[in-house]
């Protein structure tokens, strides 16, 4: 009889590690507010 082999959940270290302090780039728009927002 065929049985499904249990597979251990991927260990944390298998995921692609993000460099420490990774900050996603800001969205390209809208740009900065130079004075104030009404």
């Amino acid at each position, binding site marked *: 009889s065929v049985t499904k082999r249990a597979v251990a959940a991927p260990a944390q270290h298998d995921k692609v590690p993000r460099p420490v302090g990774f900050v996603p780039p800001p969205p*390209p*728009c*809208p740009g900065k*507010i130079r004075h*104030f*927002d*009404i």
Partner: protein
Amino acid sequence: IPAAPPAPLGCDDPESEAAAEVAVNYINGQSHHGYKFTLNTIEDIRVVPQGPNNDIIFLELNLLETKCPILSPTPLANCTVRSFAEHAVEGDCDVKLQKVNGILSVLASKCHSHADSNEDVRKVCPDCSLLARMNNTEVLEAVSAALNDYNSKTTGPYLRLLEIGRAKIQYHPGHIIATEFAVGATNCSAEEAKANVGACQLLPEDQSNFGFCTAVMVKGPSQDLQVDCQLYGHQVPHIPLLSRPGVTYIHPGQDTS
């Protein structure tokens, strides 16, 4: 392998800021009323390549009104932005530009300006006076009294009203009307005007001399009127200026193309 398309321009990229600067200078140059506007935020930018070194650029800009009247020779960089508490006015503009061999030019622009809401101003400054409507009777009376008072005391040319820039009315404490208005020098002295004011016309364009006045009229508890007018002197107009007296303050939407 075809070259990957260039990454979309970000709103804070130098190219975007350069395009926005050309657009803002164009908008101020085309406007004949109110005040100069300065860039607050580049809301969006879209580049549509037309061929080698030829792009069409669509910009969405958020501008803020400065304290410099539109006819003032003061460079925009030296113009103070009207603060929140002074009842700010913002402008939203859509501008279409073309960039050919690195040279930017404006093809069309459409702007709408509007004052901040009274509620927003009150949130920040509960006691601040608010913008009054330009056809408010008290405003019209205050501007007329201020200009008459100035003309009765000046040794310079008789001044005519071009347009009311803005006005604010405070009811408490004290009843105070603060007004700002654009003026033009006429071909009369103040003395000559007393004799025949109907003959006093704005100077022709090659001698035009525009200026700006601020006035504060106190109606209560005591009466007082302070007026200050500054003439710019003759400026060589870089565009045909169509100064039409009596123009209202906030124009609904001025298409420029």
